[in-house]
């Protein structure tokens, strides 16, 4: 009887794990807002639960999204998650069939081969099948060892830095399956109940004439590694395994991240597996900055020791969010922390006074950045004039900022004041369309302004409509044009095709190697408050080297801030879509003199 004490580490570990998980789950769910709780209740008995289970199967067990990043990395994760799941499931079925009842204690299912050596129906099948699954997981373990040595093969150039407790958890996880192999091999050697792998290993052990104390030692190691892993799990990155399940369920019930940091945010933070895929996506490493990538920020958020310097040092370009295999809202999480950090000093902007707005069809809001690049606003006005649109230049003089830069800095309450002010003006104008020439403004108009029926259009969208409707007709030139996707327009507002459509009509459009949702940031982003100018320049040069690889005549973009940033770094013409478009129309129609300075 005393021999069977080896199951204790496993039982203690499992108990600690289940109690800690229960405490965390209950506290998170209790902290959900009232509406979110209702969402869970309403969604629970609908098809959403089924679709969540399907996604849990695909993402948590099969890891299909990691497969897309790198097949080898995907295989490694799948072998651990899916393999282990099958091992536990089939192990339980095996013990139920053996006992011909469902009341089998968990340790008997897990350590089945130690307890039962006799023959029963299907015994050979289970022995071989379980061996096959174990072999499958072991191939993953082998890959995990190899990944630490040659991470590049797995598509990962830089890996996460580990803390001591992470190492303990990692080592125990690495030990579990080899230990199981040796333990079952030893038992197979003594009692001949092994499959094709453990049986063969048992044969080797028989050669060395092992005894039952060796066998017991092996089972002790196996049980202890399980116990250590279970106890460390809730306190290390492996907490993502149970949390991701909850995250996917809540996401399916329509529960979204709020501006404030709350329990939904916490569930997202704990769902991070610290796989490190975001580290390679981040452009900061060009400037040798390696402490502020999302994986580290989330770790700091978990441990509640995030410093301002790290928090504000992020371009909010969204490349990491795009790459994240779990689908965590990394940008919004970071902004929620910024809101938390700066909520004590929001401005009131009392100086803004409402004034009468003239009536119009199209309201044009250029935004601060377009005012800094007058060529763009003049081109936009010129095109509107040529097309004969009845428009109003909303912020021609004394315009207020749209509020997005404040939002990015976490000054949410202050941004609300500017939003209210601008919103009133836009609604008062009676316009059916709001035209915006800056993606930064565009994003905040779309996401936070609640403008109701008003069509919000970025100028690339609007001008394409004008071209298609025949209001303006550009002339195609021989210029080779490449296009840079602005972060806020591409990943931020999902506009990729309209600018390309326009450019294809006015020049020879060329693709670049990294584009669309993968596109690089120009480094001018207002999302970053503490990145120094020299570091920004390094990142900018890197981005330019990708964009200008094939020596285009024109580097086109659709954001005044990207233009302003790039202009300082290259001799090749950097132009906004509006500027290129107006050039091509002017060449065709020779509407030159009276169209100059239409904005003045």
């Amino acid at each position, binding site marked *: 009887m005393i021999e069977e004490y080896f199951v204790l580490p496993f039982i203690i570990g499992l108990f600690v794990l289940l109690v800690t998980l229960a405490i965390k789950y209950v506290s998170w769910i209790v902290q959900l807002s009232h509406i979110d709780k209702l969402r869970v209740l309403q969604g629970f008995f609908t098809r959403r639960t089924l679709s969540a289970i399907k996604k849990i199967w695909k993402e948590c067990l099969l890891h299909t999204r990691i497969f897309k990043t790198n097949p080898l990395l995907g295989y490694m994760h799948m072998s651990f998650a899916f393999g282990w799941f099958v091992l536990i499931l089939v192990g339980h079925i095996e013990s139920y069939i053996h006992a011909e009842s469902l009341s089998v204690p968990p340790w008997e299912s897990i350590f089945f081969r130690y307890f039962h050596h006799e023959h029963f129906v299907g015994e050979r099948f289970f022995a071989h099948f379980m061996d096959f699954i174990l072999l499958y997981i072991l191939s993953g373990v082998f890959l995990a060892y190899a990944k630490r040595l040659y991470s590049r093969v797995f598509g990962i150039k830089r890996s996460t830095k580990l803390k001591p407790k992470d190492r303990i958890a990692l080592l125990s996880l690495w030990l579990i399956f080899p230990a199981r192999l040796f333990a079952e091999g030893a038992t197979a050697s003594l009692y001949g109940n092994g499959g094709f792998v453990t049986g063969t290993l048992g044969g080797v052990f028989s050669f060395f004439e092992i005894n039952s104390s060796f066998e017991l030692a092996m089972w002790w190691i196996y049980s202890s590694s399980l116990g250590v892993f279970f106890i460390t799990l809730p306190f290390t990155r492996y907490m993502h395994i149970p949390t991701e399940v909850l995250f996917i369920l809540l996401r399916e019930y329509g529960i979204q991240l709020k501006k404030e940091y709350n329990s939904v945010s916490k569930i997202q933070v704990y769902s991070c597996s610290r796989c490190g895929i975001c580290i390679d996506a981040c452009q900061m490493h060009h400037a040798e900055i390696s402490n502020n990538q999302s994986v580290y920020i989330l770790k700091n958020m978990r441990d509640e020791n995030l410093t301002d310097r790290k928090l504000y040092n992020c371009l909010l370009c969204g490349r990491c969010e795009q790459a994240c295999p779990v689908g965590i809202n990394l940008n919004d999480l970071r902004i929620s922390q910024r809101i938390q950090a700066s909520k004590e*000093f929001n401005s009131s902007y009392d100086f803004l006074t409402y004034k009468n707005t003239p009536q119009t069809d199209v309201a044009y809001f250029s935004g601060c*950045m377009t005012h*800094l690049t007058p060529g763009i606003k003049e081109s936009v006005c010129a095109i509107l004039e040529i097309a004969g649109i009845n428009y109003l230049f909303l912020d021609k003089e004394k315009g207020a900022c749209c509020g997005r830069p404040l939002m990015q800095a976490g000054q949410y309450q202050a941004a609300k004041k500017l939003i209210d002010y601008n919103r009133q003006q836009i609604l008062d104008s009676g316009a059916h369309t709001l035209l915006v020439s800056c993606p930064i403004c565009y994003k905040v108009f779309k996401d936070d302004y609640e403008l109701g029926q008003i069509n919000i259009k970025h100028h690339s969208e609007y001008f394409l409509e004008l071209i298609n409707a025949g209001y303006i007709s550009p002339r195609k030139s021989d210029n080779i044009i490449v296009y840079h996707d602005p972060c806020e327009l591409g990943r931020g507002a999902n506009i990729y095709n309209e600018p390309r459509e326009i450019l294809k009509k006015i020049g020879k459009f060329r693709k670049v190697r990294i584009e669309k949702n993968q596109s690089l940031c120009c480094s001018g982003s*207002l999302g970053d*408050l503490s990145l120094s100018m020299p570091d920004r320049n390094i990142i900018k040069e890197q981005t330019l080297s990708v964009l200008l690889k094939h020596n285009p005549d024109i580097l086109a973009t659709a954001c005044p801030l990207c233009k302003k940033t790039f202009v300082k770094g290259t001799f090749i013409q950097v132009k906004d879509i509006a500027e290129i478009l107006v050039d091509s129309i002017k060449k065709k129609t020779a509407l030159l003199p009276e169209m100059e300075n239409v904005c003045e």
Partner: protein
Amino acid sequence: MKKFGFTTAQSRSIDYDKVNTKLIKYIIENESSFSTCISCGACTATCSAGNITHFNIRRLNIQIRLGKYETIKQEIDKCMLCGKCMLVCPRGINTRNVIMLIKKGLTTLDLSD
């Protein structure tokens, strides 16, 4: 200096024996680029808030160095963080971070003499 016929306007001179330097030290500690400011005023010329009000970042710089925290408190609330100043700054100063640091410093630091 007076001996040589030069005079200095009181409002423009900083007497380091008397001024309260807590805020400027805090800012430079966290955003060292601020110490490279040459007071050219490009930031103020382009400023969106300055277009609507009398907000003046260039003057703010002197007031921080003079330790006039009451004036700064009233002024700093006008900034909308739009970032134009950062783009025009010939010294590449992270002006938006400076503004955030001033705001944070004013609310969290003990600035009494």
